[in-house]
Each structure stands twice: as C-alpha cells, then as structure tokens.
C-alpha cells in the first residue's frame, strides 16, 4: 500500500507537455533552479540529517548567553528542602536554570564540569558515542523510576563509573536538570544548520552582476567596460553551473548520511568484527531487497553483548527495549532508488557476483552509513557497460552461442551485461 503510494507519487514527475508550454516550462525550470540552488544549499536535507562537511558548520549555541552574574531571581531563590522536588512540577525559571546548569553556564555544587560537553545539545558531524542530550531526556521521560542522581552518584556499570567518576549532583540540581529534560524531549533531535557558502556565492555573484548592469547603464563609474562584461560573464557561468549541478542532483542523495535511531557502526560490525554483510542482510542473495535486519537478528549477538566499548549500554539497550515493547526500530533509509526502477539484489549479488562495495562503498570504514554513489541511471549504465557477467561459468548463458564462439576464437575475453540486454529499458523499468 505504501509502496504503491510512493510509486504513483514518483511517476508523477513525468508529465506530458505540449511544445509551447514545454519551452516556457523549461525557462521556468531554469529560473527556479537557480533560485532553488540557494534554497537547496540551506535545506538540502531533512530534519534528522547531517550535511556535507565542507558546506556545513555547527550552529552556535542558541542559548541566551549567561552574562556576568546570576540574575536577581536566582539570588532570591532559597534552597528548598529535598522532599520539595516533586518530579513533574517545573517552572519556566527552573527550566532555564537547568539549561544553564547542563551547559556549564551555572556551576554544579560538586564542581563537576558541564553535561553538554559530552551529551551534545546540538547536532554533530562526527559521531559522538555518548547519548545526545535529547536522548537522555527521552529515556528519563519514558521511565518514571529513572533518577539522574542515581546514575551520577551511584553508577552501576563500569562505563558509567569511569565516565562519571567524581561527579555528583544534588537533589536540587537533579530537579533543575529534569526541568530542562522536559524541554529537550519536547524539542527532539537537534538540527544541523548549514553555513551558506554556496548561497553566499550565489547571492554575491548576483549582487555583483546587478551592480555591473546598473553601472553599465546608469551610473557609469567604471571607465573600462571590460570589467562589466567579465563580471557578467563569470556571474552567468557561476549561476549556470549551480543550476546544472542542482538540476542533475534533483532527487539524488549522494553523500546522504542521516543520524540513525541507533548509533550503529558498520565500522565496528563489518570492519573490526568482520561480520559478513550477508549475516545481517541475508536476503540479498535471493530477494529483491537486501533486508534491513530484523530485531531478532541483532539479538543473536546482543543477547550476550550487552555493552559496547564506545557507546556503552545506552545504544544496545534500544534493541532490548524494542524487543520488550514490540516497537521495531525505525531506521532511516539511505539507499533508495526511484520506484520506477526495479533493482534486484539477487540479480547483482548472486547472479552478477558483484561486491557489495561496488554500490555501497567501503561501509566497513563508516561509523555512520553514507550513500557513496549517486545511484543515477548513468552510473548504473556505466557499470552495465563495463562489468562482465559470469558468462562462462553459468550454464544459463549457454544460449548465447555466437558470443561463446567469439570467446573461443579469442575475439573477446568477456561479455558485459549491456551486450546481453543490460541496456534495455525494461531491464529495470516496468
């Protein structure tokens, strides 16, 4: 149901167009593509995504920076008795105070450093194995017996003992942190914001071109007309390049590497532990889909492996929790072909003997899985034209007698997929 829904949505991209409209349409596309190149560079990826490293930078903390001293309200608040801190009752002021505490803008009584330096409140490029602030908040919110004080003051696991060594908090501080947690869990995962390099170039060039045109026609301040034309020429070229690049990348998600609900590292599983791809993605050999492993596959190992060296138990607990609650993990899909192309893993992995890395890159080096190739039709076809099929060893291909003769005569040394119909439209589109 969902599949068909997507399918109709996708194929809607292709419309029948009458020729005059087509021309005007093309013009509209060009104009708006250049416009969109700006938009795209800001909002290219959705909420839970990260963005290409070179064009992104972490947003500066949005907190109102705490000035010199605590404000007056803070001063007048008296330290209440311990049993006054009832879970679930927080004031706006407490939320703000908790936020400062968490971010190190107000000191802890024990003198420990802030929480945010390990439990990030903002999204990061690099993987941070510690749970993010919002994740802590969600865990706290879902478990009524969860106590920050217990975790900090009497840690049970080795990992927590090491990481939180010497850090204690008071009941009041716990209450303030809890207050802040309510805000964090409401906000959800932090969002990356891009530093608009490409937008700056786009608008900068546009501004320069505008100046050049204005000066050329009205103000005439610059005596050398060559300057105007060079600016216009370069500007149009830059804008054209942007439009081209963005148009080509429409619907493509090369380098897409979203944060996943579990900090699952292919580097650790496929790289360090050398687990075979098809241990988890076990249907790749005989099905269209390579299969996102179901929870019980994870549990095969994590029934025993309850804690990771990098992430501790926090991430692995999510698997156990899924098993307990019956709510499967909602992974973010990274590699996605349009619905009008029918790709079969079995065809490529089993019959075609392609290595997984040919399409998915060196996943064993990735903490966060990333789409390495652009998965465009041109990219597919290049491979179909270049890679040889398992021609001599697979009896299926015996029907191609002429090609077998050619190989026997030494005219060719292999047969590519394209020679066997790998370029036919209906190889993939039906």
């Amino acid at each position, binding site marked *: 149901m969902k599949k*068909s829904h997507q399918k109709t949505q996708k194929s809607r*991209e292709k419309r029948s167009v009458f020729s005059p409209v087509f021309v005007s349409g093309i013009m509209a596309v060009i104009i708006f593509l250049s416009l969109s190149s700006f938009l795209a560079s800001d909002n290219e990826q959705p909420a839970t995504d990260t963005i290409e490293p070179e064009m992104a930078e972490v947003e500066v903390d949005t907190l109102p920076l705490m000035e010199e001293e605590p404000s007056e309200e803070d001063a007048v608040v008296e330290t209440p008795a311990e049993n006054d801190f009832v879970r679930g009752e927080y004031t706006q002021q407490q939320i703000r105070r908790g936020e400062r505490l968490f971010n190190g803008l107000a000191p802890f009584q024990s003198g420990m450093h802030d929480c945010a330096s390990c439990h990030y409140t903002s999204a990061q490029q690099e993987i941070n194995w510690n749970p993010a602030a919002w994740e802590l908040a969600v865990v706290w919110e879902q478990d009524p017996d969860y106590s920050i004080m217990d975790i900090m003051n009497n840690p049970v696991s080795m990992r927590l003992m090491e990481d939180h060594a010497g850090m204690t908090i008071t009941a009041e501080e716990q209450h303030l942190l809890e207050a802040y947690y309510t805000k964090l869990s409401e906000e959800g995962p932090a969002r990356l914001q891009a530093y608009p390099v490409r937008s700056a170039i786009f608008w900068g060039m546009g501004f320069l071109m505008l100046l050049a045109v204005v000066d050329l026609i009205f103000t005439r301040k610059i005596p050398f007309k060559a300057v105007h034309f060079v600016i216009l020429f370069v500007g149009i070229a830059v804008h054209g390049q942007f439009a081209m690049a963005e148009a080509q990348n429409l619907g493509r998600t090369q380098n897409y590497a979203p944060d996943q609900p579990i900090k699952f590292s292919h580097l650790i599983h496929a790289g360090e532990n050398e687990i075979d791809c098809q241990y988890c993605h076990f249907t790749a050999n005989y099905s269209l889909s390579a299969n996102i492993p179901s929870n019980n596959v994870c549990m095969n190992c994590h029934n025993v492996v309850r804690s990771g060296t990098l992430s501790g138990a926090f991430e692995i607990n999510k698997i156990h929790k899924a098993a307990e609650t019956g709510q499967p993990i909602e*992974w*973010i899909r990274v590699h996605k072909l349009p619905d009008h192309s029918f790709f079969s893993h079995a065809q490529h992995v089993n019959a075609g003997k392609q290595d997984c890395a040919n399409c998915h890159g060196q996943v064993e080096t990735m903490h966060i899985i990333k789409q390495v190739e652009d998965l465009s039709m041109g990219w597919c076809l290049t491979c179909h034209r270049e890679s040889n099929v398992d021609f001599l060893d697979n009896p299926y291909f015996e029907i191609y007698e002429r090609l077998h003769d050619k190989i026997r005569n030494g005219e060719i040394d292999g047969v590519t997929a394209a020679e066997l119909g790998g370029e*036919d439209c209906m190889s993939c589109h039906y």
Partner: protein
Amino acid sequence: MEKKYWQSIEETQAHFKPQAEEKEASMIEILANEANEKAASRRDFLKWCGISFFSATVISACENPVKKAIPYLHQPETITPGKASWYASSFVDGNRFCSVLVKNRDGRPIKIEGNDLCNFTGGGTNAITQASVLSLYDDGARYKYPTKDGEKISWEKADKAILKALKEAADKGKKCYLLTPTLMSRSTTTIIESLKTRYPALEFVSWDAVGYYAIREAHLHTFQTAAIPDYRFDKADLIVSFSADFLATWLAPVSFAHRYATTRRLSEEKKTMSRHIHFEASMSVTGSNADERIPVKPSAELEIIMELYNEMAALTGNPVFSSPATHYDTKALAQEILDSKAKALIVCGHDNLKAQILINAINHMAESYGNTLDNRKTLNMGHGNKEAMEQMIEAMENGNAELVMFYKSNPLYNHPEAAKIKAAMANVPVTVSFATAKDETAKACTYILPDNHYLESWGEVMPVWGTHALMQPVMQPIFNTRQFQSSLLAWMEEDTDYHKHIMNYSERVLFPRQNQFPDFQQFWMHTLQAGILENDEVLSFNANLQSGVTSDAIAQLKAQTAQASQLQFSVMEDVKAADGSYANNPWLQELPDPITKISWDNFAAISPRFAEENNLKDGDRITINGLEVPMIIQPGQAYESISLALGYGREHAGKSADKVGVNAFALLNTNPFPWNVESWEKNGSGYEFARSQTHHSMEGRHIVRESNLDKYKENPKAGNEIRDYHLKHMVTLYPEQKFEGHHWVLMVDLNACNGCSTCVIACQAENNTPVVGKQEVKNRRIMHWMRIDRYYTGEAENPGVVFQPLMCQHCDNAPCENVCPVAATNHSHEGINQMAYNRCVGTKYCINNCPYKVRRFNWFRYAMNDKFDFNMNSELGRMVLNPDVTVRERGVVEKCSFCIQRIQDGKLKAKNERRKLKDGDITPACAGACPSQALVFGDLNDPDSRVAQLIKDPRNYHLLEELHTLPTVGYMTKIRNRKG
C-alpha cells in the same frame, strides 16, 4: 434452420454488417465537449503549467523526504521482503470451485493462479476466481465487526443472543433455520449435523440462487441415486448442449473448459476434434463456440428434447411417446448421437426436472454413463433444494421461525420472491447474516456476524468425489471477522478453532485412505502444500434406467410447454456477476461481456428479426413483465425470445454494484410456464451502453482465419492459404533482425480459446491496470492491456462467432517504435516491444501508428483520484497492487509487456540456480490463467520449446502480416467441425 456456411470472410461481408453504423461521438467531439464544459482557456492552461513547473521544481529541489526502513521485530520464516511466497488454497463459493495458488508478497495476497496439481480443474481459473482477491480488500463493502441492528457489539454478546434463541426455540415449539448454498465441505456439514443434534429445533436448508437441483433429483428418479455425474467433455466426440453454458458459468466451468479444450486442440498428430451442437435462446459463450448453434426459444428447446428422446427411443427400440413436432431435424441428430458410439454427451442447463429426466434417458440410450458421464466419481455440487427453501419461507411467514441464519445466501436479492421473504423476516425474532460484505439480506438482519474472506479462512471441500481440496488462510483477518464454521463451533460451546477441526477431520477421514505417508503431520503438511488430495472415495450409481419415469416426464413437459407464450424470455448467469455475489468487484464490472462487449450493465437481448418487426433499436428501453430494462439487438438471439443476465441491479452491495443494471431474478416468478413474457412494451430509447467493441465485422481482412475440419484434414493450411501469398511478398531492404539469447513468442490457439475473458482479468490483476468506470469506457478509454475481439460472420439471425485475444503483438518491425519522438518505446534484445513510462511524454503518436490498437493512454490519474472511486482510491484497495509493476501516471502510454516482470524473474531464477532456462519457466498472467491453455508463451530460440513447434504449424499466422510488422504473437486458425 438452414445455416449458411461460408468459406472465407469476405463472402460474409456482403450479407452482414451489424450495428457498425451506430452513432458514436468521435474523439474530437468528445474532447471538444470536454473543453467546452470547462471555462478554462489556453492561457489558464499555460498558467497552470507554469505554476506546476514552479512548484514541482521548488518542492523537489528543497528537500528529499525522509524515508524510513522499518524491519520486522521478528521476521517470520515464511516472509522474505521483496520475494513472493505461494500458498495452495481453494476458491469455494456454493457450487463454484477452483483450486488455486495464491501469490503472497510481503504478507498480502496479490494474485490468484490455478493449481496445476488439481486434475479436476486442470490448473485453470476463471474471471471470478481471478478477481476474487480484490474482494478481500473491498473496505467499502466488507463488514468489519459484528453488529446488532447496525450497532457494534462483541462476539460474546452475539453468541449469547443466538445461543438463547437456539435453546428457547424448542421450548416455544418454534424452528431455527440455517440457510446456506450448496456446501461441498463435509467437515462443515458434520459441524452442522452435530449442531442439529444439540439443538433439535435447528433446520439446515441448502438453497442456490442458480441451482442444479433438478439434475440431482432427475438422477434420483431415473437411477435411484441423487447424484450429479461428472461430465467428461474430454472423452466426448459429440457434445449436444441445451442451454448449458458449461464453458463459462454452468456447474464447473473451469474444469469443463479445460476438458473441452483438449478435444478441440488440433496438431499434425491429432487431426480429430469433438463436434459441438448447441441449442439456446441467448448467445452464450459456449453457444458461440459451437460447431452448430441452433437459436431456439426455451419452449422450443424443451420440445426438441422431447422429440430427440422419441427419435432416440425409436432407433434403440424403446417406447415412444407423443410429443409436439419441431422444426429441427432431430432424427438426424439422434442418428448422429448413436453413430458416435458411446462417445456422445448430452447436457441440459435448464433447472427443470422433467427435461433433466429426459436428458438422462437420452444419455442412457446413447450409452454415455460410464463413458462420457462419470457415474462413480460424481460431482458433489447442486445440493440447493428449492422446496426446502419454500418450506422455510412458509415457516417464517407463519411465525414458526425463532431464528434464521443466512450464510452466503442473499435471498432478499436473488430469490424470485424476495419481497415476500423480506416481509416474512419481520415475523422472525432473531435473524443473522454471516455476510462477508454488504448485501441486501444482511441489511435486513438483526445480527451481522461477518465471515472471513476465503483468503483469510481455513476450509476443506470435496467438489467431486475422490478429490479433496484444502483452503488455508494466506493472511490474518483484516477486520474483526470470524469464520462461519468457528461461529458454529462457538455455539456448540466447543473450541472455535476450525483449523483444528479440519485437521481432526483429515486424520479421521482422509489419512486412513492413503498409504504414502505413515505419519499424519507429514501427510497434513504435504496435502496442505499441494492444496489437493485425490483418493478412491466414490459416490456411484448404477445406470439402470427406471421404467416409467420418462413417460411421465414427457407428459408433464408437454403440458408445460403447451402453456408457453409466443414471446419468451430467458435468464442466465454471465461470466462476471454470476448470481450477483461478485457485482461489487470493479474489475469484473468493467470486464466487457464476452459476447456483447458491454461493461457496467446488463441488458435485454433480442433478435434482429424481432427488432425489425417491432421497430426496436439498440438502447431502447423495454418493459418485460413489469421490469424496465434497456435492450440491444443481439445477432444469434432466438427469434421471439428476450435474454437477460442475472446478477445486476443490486441495491445494497457497494459503490461499484449498486444501481448497475437491473435485477432479472425478479422475472423468475412467472407462472405457469416459467419463461412467459406476459406483457412487454417499449417505453423509451437512447440508453447508452459502455461498449468496448462497437464494430463487429472484419471488413474483409483476414483477421481471424478459420476453416472446417474436413478441409483441414485435406490441407492443414486450410483457411490460412493467404499466408503463403503474404510471405512471398514480404521483402525488405533491411537486414533480418536476429535475436540472440531469447526471443519471446506468444502463440494463441483460436481453436482452444472460448472467449471466457479470464485472461483479461488476470492481466489486470498482474499489471495494476486501473478501472476507469462506465463513462470512460463509453469514451473509449478502457485501459485493459489485452482485450478479446469478437467478430460475427454469416447471417445476423445465426452468425458464426470468433474470438481473438488481442494484446501487444510485440512486432519485430514495430510501427509504434519509430514514431516516438523521445524513444520511450523501443525494441529489446529479446524481441520485446518495451515501454519506458518515465520517458513517455504522451504524444500518443505510437497509439495512432499501432495497427492493432493495443496501446492505452492514461487520460487521467486513475490512482488516488476521487473521480475514479474504485479500488485504487482506497488505502486498502491499493493493497492488491503488484509491487513489481509501476502504477502509471497520467499522461503516459502503456501496453502489454509480455509480463516482463515475470520474464525477468524467471531468468533470474535460472541464473541463480545456474541452469538453462526451461520451457514453461515463464508464463505471462494471461497464459497462466487460461483454463483452456489457449495461450502458450516461450522462447523461439529454444528449438524444443512448445512455441517453436507451434510457430511451424501450418495453422500459424500473424495478425495483419501484410503490413510487415513481423509480430511475435502468432495465432492458430480456428477450425470448426461442421457437417456439409
């Protein structure tokens, strides 16, 4: 009646040009009208284009939506994402049976195929079976939870109320009734029997809206055993049918079509075929396939049966009785039957006891029993008993019924006395319906305890003695429904698991009768996997004719026909709606009737002569016995007869069925002769039918080539002589195309094809073809990828009929390919004319240049569009879509792809198994569904394949081959077996 026999098609054109001239709006007019209806100008159009471009660009450039990939928590062993699993099951509904395989993809059933392991059905299906998967997802009509007076209640409360009624009925001295259609399931009848023992007030009534009880009863009279023999059309050399539409609707059409086709298929080795003589009033699918078709009105038909009996009796030295004289040469027919020496088979479709007794006697004299009529492994069908039904109605009227339960019965729609029953229901304190989906009876019931769809159910049936079929659920029930049998078990206050009950039954009854498996679990798993089990169980009878029964039968039948009026009507089931149960299936509603090519309607058919005499024309509204119905002139309709299809005119069945056509069951009430037209008048005209074929002549071209058996025996090229001429003139400057690897070919045997249209539905189910609705069919925008063209030849009063399945011909020199400006359609390495939807810009040049008119244009967006409120417009209805085929968007052209997804799948399987592709590995939906195996698909480059053999057959020809399009679809000439 004198029949005009013709040699070639041209000959007939001079005589017969039926309603080709009817006024039809041209495409330009339609477009112009549509343009006028809207106030939008060209400027608006451009504006909207600009806006849509703008928004599409901005939206697609801004953000790619986050797609989630949610795995199973515990992946079931039997489900592999992206890979189909298959389950053997059975389609069972009253007398209808088909052993099927259900394709299940990602946990949802999406396609039905025939089960090759079933010898009874021969691996075929019919249109209703193919379409049954869609009814599963009919969320508009299906009942979703138990109700009382329309209010949702719990199963426990409902059970309590019904138990109370069951228990109290005996105290009150009242009866409880359970009404079912024919139940072929012995495990169900045992439950009912024990329920009857527990609650003595319970009566079990079996009643079929379209029944065969007369056959069963006739055998009781003639052979002292209430049974229906199995009809072995495959063993018959001469088939004489009186209104029995056995290829499409009568009794077990899937099996009969399969058996019939085996006698009709011709090859170099087998140059004999059966001869089929058919008497009927309306033009039926079976009649249109007959070698000799005699259009007669019902009373005349019965008279012919009487006369035939007498002639046979005279020839075999049996007593002869007086009977009315007929115009038909029954003597010659009797002689022919006797000449065929125990290889004749006479069948009668009338549910008339006297006629069936005579048919039994005729078959007895023809020595059919034990030969063409299997009196050992008899059919377990036709248990519906009209008299028991009458008694039940009487008890309801008298207030003697405490509880009435309706299972798969809808008498408020399809009983002739529906109004009476409705009134009587008011006297019954508790009424219960087990309806799966909306129906008229359920609406009037106090309790609705919805039954599972058959794809959600367990089941066991025995359609014919010695053949046991299992039904297994292929998905969890979608709604809060409970299987009928489980309800009965609940009232037995027993374990409600019907699955266990069937297993117990199998262990008790089926397991001891086999010696293949020593262990029951093994036996059970194997049987469940096969879906079918054959053993030696029989219900046989001795074919010793009782004396005296025939004389009474003739006397009574004579008295009956004497009361016949001049003008008579006949009603019959059609291949789509049957008794009305399938009316809410949009696939079936849109399926063009095999003969008239009308969809979304039923109609009164009258003969051309009668129309001329009474100045009637297509689309006139006539009133017959008070029922107003639009009419058409049907070539081949018996003079002075009016025919109507049953199953239409539903009142409360769902959006696709309601108010479509008229309810012909209402007519069945006329006495004393059941088919008398007591009054009729014309009261209007101008009704427009949605007709997918309005031109019925081949215009002198050799589209369907046919010949007669005697000529074929002399020269196997008979009828196909013109092919040599075309081949001689086929010269080209271009080098001949060579296809390395595979070269896919589809061969269509016109002799085996009976026009039943199963393939059309199979194609629609496989390829996500949208339903477009009545108006769009009228606008010539039906989307079916394959159609069955029907042509008439000969005289209008009794024409020859030919069917031709027509799909994309996959021309190797395709005219569509070289006119496409964007190369969206081109030729593959394997000879397939491929269509890339995403490249198509919708110029429709290809459609214009296709000489076969097999390309379809998506004029609208048919999915998720309220204007096309069929299955693709509901979340649940879209579950039936095949995920391996794109749902096409507005503005693109589509057409038959030879089921490329299946070709790709078959090739991949062979590659992965490291073996050569075998013939038969790949079967397109149409070929797989065909009960007659008229379509054969394969690789021409494989010299041992069936198609490589068939294409060399002298009967093979290609459609419009004079155009040098080099189609890869081949047709085999139609050979008839006519005398003289």
